[in-house]
């Protein structure tokens, strides 16, 4: 349905398209028509909720209440940073999660991509295996890992078998010291395949000639990686870093399914806390304030990353 610029328009009778004014005008209309489905949905379900959340965060609005909301100024924000220890803990947990997941998942993804980026028989099978967890529903994966992490689950049985009973393993999800770590491991396993594919796409844009030239100069495989591969992956690296960071900061589903923020709030995250406050405890105004804090934090972090990784001319 593309509208080609009518090059033959000049031969047509003038009167016929006076109501379209000009070719440009017509194209604008066509463009608007095509934007409309996505545009209206975006406005309705993204832009308006964001504005609403911004407005709600300065009130004491309830999810359910016969009393009208009151304007409370900065109370919600003050409460988050001074009177809500669980919120502060959630910020800490989210930060730890992101700080571990971003470098490890990006690095592991790159390693896997380099491994499967060769021409040999059966390599597609490996790519598929690494990619399967990505297309599996995260809820399903979370439930499976919840079983595996149980005290008498698969992981502890394996540890028991490998160490001949010398080490019992922990009750992973019920120990405040190990719960977040367990979720980190599972999250990386689930998502690393996606970033492997992104890295792989980046690797395949690097011209083969560069490697040939490097080999001619007698570069070792490591030297080839540092001098040819890595510089060639720069734009990919920026993309991978920013997407992992945003996804890691928005950690929610695994927590909701596996631990509900426990044990002792050791896995509560910002988004999970906002959902719990907003829906379970019906404090929509306060939850909106938490969401706003989260939004600003993600924006700032993403901008810093863009700045640090920009092309230095």
């Amino acid at each position, binding site marked *: 349905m593309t509208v080609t610029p009518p090059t033959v328009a000049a031969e047509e009778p003038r009167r016929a398209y006076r109501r379209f004014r000009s070719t440009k005008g*017509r194209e604008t209309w066509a463009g608007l028509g*095509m934007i*409309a489905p996505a545009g209206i*949905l975006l406005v309705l379900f993204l832009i308006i909720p964001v504005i609403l959340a911004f407005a709600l965060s300065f009130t004491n609005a309830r999810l359910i*209440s016969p*009393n009208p909301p009151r304007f409370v100024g900065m109370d919600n924000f003050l409460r988050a940073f001074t009177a809500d220890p669980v919120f502060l803990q959630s910020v800490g947990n989210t930060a730890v999660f992101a700080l571990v997941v971003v470098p490890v998942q990006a690095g592991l993804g790159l390693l896997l991509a380099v491994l499967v980026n060769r021409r040999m028989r059966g390599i597609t099978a490996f790519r598929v295996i690494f990619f399967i967890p990505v297309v599996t529903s995260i809820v399903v994966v979370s439930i499976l890992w919840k079983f595996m992490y149980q*005290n*008498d689950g698969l992981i502890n049985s394996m540890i028991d078998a490998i160490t001949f009973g010398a080490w019992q393993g922990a009750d992973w999800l019920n120990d405040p010291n190990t719960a977040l770590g367990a979720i980190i491991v599972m999250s990386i396993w689930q998502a690393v395949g996606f970033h492997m594919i992104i890295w792989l796409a980046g690797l395949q844009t690097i011209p083969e000639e560069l490697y040939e030239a490097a080999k001619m100069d007698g570069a070792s495989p490591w030297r080839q990686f540092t001098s040819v591969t890595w510089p060639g992956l720069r734009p990919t690296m920026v993309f991978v870093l920013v997407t992992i960071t945003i996804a890691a900061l928005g950690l929610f589903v695994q927590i909701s399914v596996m631990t509900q923020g426990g*044990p002792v709030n050791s896995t509560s995250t910002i988004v999970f806390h906002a959902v719990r406050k907003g829906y379970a405890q019906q404090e929509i105004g306060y939850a909106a304030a938490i969401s706003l804090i989260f939004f600003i934090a993600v924006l700032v972090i993403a901008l810093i990353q863009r700045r640090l990784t920009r092309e230095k001319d």
Partner: protein
Amino acid sequence: MRTRTPILVSAGLVTAIALTGCGQAGQGDTTTADGRTPLTMWTHSAGNPAELEVYEQIISDFNASQDDYEVVHESFPQGAYNDAIVAAAASGDLPCLLDLDGPIMPNWAWAGYLQPLGISTDITDSLLPTAVGVWDDEIYSAGYWDAALSIFARKSVLEANGVRIPTVEEPWTEDEFADVLATLKSAGYDTPIDIGAEDKGEWWPYAYSPFLQSFGGDLIDRDTMLSADGALNGPDAVAWGEWFQGLFADGYANNSGTIGNQEFIDDEVALSYTGVWNAVTALDEVGDDLLILPPPDLGNGPKIGGGSWQWAISSSCDDADGARAYLEFSFQDKYLTEFADKQVVIPATEAAAEASKYFGEDGALRPFVEFSQQYAVLRPETPAYAVISTTFETAAKDIMNGADVQQTLDQAVSEIDANIESNDGYGFQ
């Protein structure tokens, strides 16, 4: 090419509008083909065929019994049901008739979602007190059944280990219960009791706040309904917390395994603290060896949760008279009996219980009726319950995982109290 542009534009707009259009739930402002007024009805019973079957029977009987109204029902899965109600209320699309979980009723009545039930008092007076929902001295909801909890055990196992079989007259005391667990653990049960701690959500306050009440604590000070201070963090509550923590620390219970009663069926646990809804399966599997025992008396008599799913009429219902006619029709003993036997829940009237296969005088599940009559404690009837429920769940889970009891309960109290205060006491003075 030229004339295509407007078509394209309008097609795009139409698509966008169609995508964002919202269907209106019927509010009884239209009539059906044969001139009846439709009554919309929502249930949480999708995924529960036994329950749904009885509802469909009642609805078709009611529709056939008169010419004025036609009940049209929709079923939702339980997990998404409360959210659907809140969303529908926010957009003014509530159905006429809806069922709801007993403890959430005050919250919705206070929010103005519901109107007083207004069905004949002959009916509500005949029901179990825990099957009637009261808020602000008005009846807002009523149910066909109640549920009850008990401890399942195998007679052979208790006898082989010399454990006294408790009765309603003489339940296990706290010390005796501790001895029983220790005995069964040394008899080879890895975790002697399954209390269902792997579950989440409303199960936690429903199942474990009765233990707290048996110790003498409570979720909130019920005299004022304005504060949880003292009830949820006083010495009795701390004693409950220490006891609850001990169950896990001593290896008597754990929170792994599957939700439901499978561990007991497989004889991996000796005792199972679970609900009446699992009783028929246990009967089939264990047979005459099955014991249905009262929960332990932890100081103030055994306690169990009361109040299950009930029916209410929304405030936006234009045909409340029709809704009442339907509800009055539906509270016939034969239907209550059918619910009880198909779903395995306690019928709300004595007459329905008499006629029931399981809950009659000689029925195998009769003990549940006695427990319900003697031990049931309603969850606090206050709009604050939504917050109390989730706060208690979090606190109890933290205690299970070894957090400091006093500190955890103090934190829970301050969260509950802050919420009550910010809602201007929810109308309590």
